[in-house]
């Protein structure tokens, strides 16, 4: 029998809080970053590319030297089979090219791709960019200015024991001097948003997010954020189990936060990526989706604040919260970013080919 059952080994607040210096912190330095995998991408100011490294449990900030100005003279960009083009440049089979994420440098309008060369654990990371004329080139990583911050992660027991746990970085955003990172564990089913000070100083705060889900007065605490974006000091997060949720950025301070469910995106919905843009006097959210085309939702701060949270379930496949339309002509969009005030850039994947193209913002 259990002889004694001891409680109180730690403060209750720590259950939902990790707040401590990073394991390793570098200021900007010049050399070759020890990037193990180039995953989620975002841009910080001055052409600094933020790269999520799931295998290395870290975020890198890499100076691209690409500070603009933007060249908007190139018109439409279309690169069919961009995976094949990259394969040719690196000497690999097209099937061995995995494009992990895409981000546009807002300073220059150049498009950046994070790539794995190979599909095995020894796959090499690489960064490619496409300029306004559609020219594809790589960003050599052997001598760049970069900074790195590693995650202070879940408690590690028994140092030296093989630890197969990874926190896969599913999205990164830069907002107001901070880097926000969404992650998903390959073991426990948890939801945390990490906030890193930028420039990196070792400070990081991880906040657990609770989300209402409709029926029976239930509250769900377990769900990973799939993709998110910041808007008017609010995190707009799409969850793997379909709610669209708002969380004030200022609330990401380590205390447990309850998100507000503002839309239910429906079944067969696997949110992949999102952007916010302005057209006329109206802001819109555009959300890509593995099976349902692209969703377009008018958005305003006033709406997000005033919409009643969804706390009751919506029967019969009905909708509640913010309204949206589905753009059926945009299918198989796996990556999405805003290229400029009038265009979006998409990665469209079908039958082993990945095409890059620009479209007018819908």
């Amino acid at each position, binding site marked *: 029998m259990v002889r004694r059952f001891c409680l109180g080994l730690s403060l209750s607040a720590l259950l939902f809080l990790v707040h401590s210096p990073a394991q390793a912190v570098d200021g900007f330095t010049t050399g070759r970053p020890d990037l193990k995998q180039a995953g989620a991408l975002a841009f910080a100011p001055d052409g600094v590319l933020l790269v999520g490294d799931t295998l290395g449990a870290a975020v890198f900030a890499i100076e691209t030297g690409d500070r603009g100005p933007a060249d908007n003279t190139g018109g439409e960009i279309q690169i069919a089979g961009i995976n094949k083009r990259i394969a040719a440049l690196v000497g690999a089979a097209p099937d061995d090219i995995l494009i992990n994420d895409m981000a546009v440098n807002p300073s220059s309008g150049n498009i950046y791709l994070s790539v794995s060369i190979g599909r095995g654990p020894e796959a090499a990371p690489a960064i490619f960019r496409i300029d306004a004329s559609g020219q594809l080139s790589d960003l050599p990583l052997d001598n760049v200015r970069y900074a790195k911050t590693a995650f202070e992660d879940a408690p590690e027991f028994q140092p030296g024991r093989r630890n197969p746990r990874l926190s896969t970085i599913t999205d990164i955003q830069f907002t107001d001097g901070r880097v926000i990172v969404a992650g998903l564990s*390959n073991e426990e089913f948890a939801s945390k948003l990490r906030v890193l000070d930028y420039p990196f100083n070792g400070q990081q705060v991880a906040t657990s997010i609770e989300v209402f889900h409709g029926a029976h007065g239930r509250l769900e605490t377990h769900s990973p954020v799939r993709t998110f974006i910041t808007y008017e000091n609010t995190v707009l997060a799409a969850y793997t189990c379909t709610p669209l949720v708002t969380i004030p950025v200022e609330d990401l301070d380590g205390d447990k936060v309850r998100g507000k469910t503002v839309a239910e995106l429906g079944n067969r919905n696997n949110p992949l990526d999102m952007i916010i843009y302005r057209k006329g006097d109206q802001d819109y959210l555009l959300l890509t989706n593995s099976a349902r085309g692209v969703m377009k939702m008018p958005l305003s701060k006033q709406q997000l604040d005033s919409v009643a949270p969804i706390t009751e379930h*919506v029967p019969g496949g009905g909708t509640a919260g913010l309204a949206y339309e589905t753009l059926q002509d945009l299918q198989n969009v796996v990556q999405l970013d805003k290229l400029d005030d009038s265009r979006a850039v998409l990665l469209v994947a079908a039958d082993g080919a990945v095409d890059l193209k620009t479209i007018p913002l819908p």
Partner: protein
Amino acid sequence: MCASIRSCSAVVRATAALLGACFLWNCPAVADTRIELGGGIHLRWIAAPQPTFVLEGVPHPSTTAPQAYFEIVSRPDESSDVRTQPAMLGRYEVQGNTIRFTARYASRNRAGYVVRIGPALQRVLPTGAPATIPIEPGEQKTAPTARVTAVYPSADILPENLLKFYIHFSQPMSRGRAYDWIELYEGDRKVEMPFLELGEELWDPQQQRFTLFLHPGRLKRGVRPNEELGPPLTAGRQYTLRINSSWQDANGLPLQSGYEKHFTVGPPDRQQLNPEDWKIETPRAGTRQPVAIVFNEPLDHAMLERVLVVKHQTGNTIDGEIQVLDGETRWEFAPAVPWKTGTYFVEVAANLEDLCGNSIARPFEVKLQDRVAANPQTRIAIEFIVK
């Protein structure tokens, strides 16, 4: 190996002649291929670690435009034109009468390369030399060796709200198409969209363990996927998790065979874990007998291997080996050295989950009015005394 380019077949097969002396830039001797181009000029291809091409015997090569001598093209498919395909990225170095090209990225090239002879080299080669020289990689391993070694949970009866499977492989696997090779069947009927499909895919660092979540939107009551499609599993029915043999390992080879896990579904489990329901078996001093915890239900296999640790009452962590047994209902820890008499603890992280995502800290779904029942601890400790 051909003695000259005129007698060489159109394709040079790199069956790895070993050149014993590799004196350029003090590089180590590696398996490589030498191609005589005529006029005392030859090209060597070194496959690893970085694909490298060394042109030797060039009279007075230009140091400013070495790419005018040759470029390397990743061998294109039939739809591409080798003359217009962009050259591979890399670095040229010129030293003496040698031009060396080192590819920037070490990549597994299954198709081979084409050496595109440039105008500067054409001028010094004998008349009639070809404009391109294809190079094929050597024979590659073709027999599949990878297999599925285990699928967890290992029990034959699984709860209706099962949250995840772990699929273990005998060697590293490829990433990027996992969900194409996994299917769930109820009898002969394929279950529609049962899994959470994440482009990133959830692997361990060695890519030998794949984590497969059932779709959380179909497990959670009250969200639309659950309302409209229902849960992926239904109590009382029988299912098969099928893993297709076409799943490729890290070398691009399929599995030796497919794998099936048959199971019956039982009632859902929405209960928070309660360590008061566990039993501990205490070892004797002077032995390496394991301390064991017997659970009242199967728990998460991966977390049982990671989030329990044995400590002496002084706080020192005890080194030893963990085994997870009896369908993940039994955890054992055998110390590296025999137990000494004294008081010990098994420390358990409160995020330890059962098969349905219920943890010590809280159940998978929490009723608002029950929030106070959530266990606020990050770890609990179970004491045992070794005599």
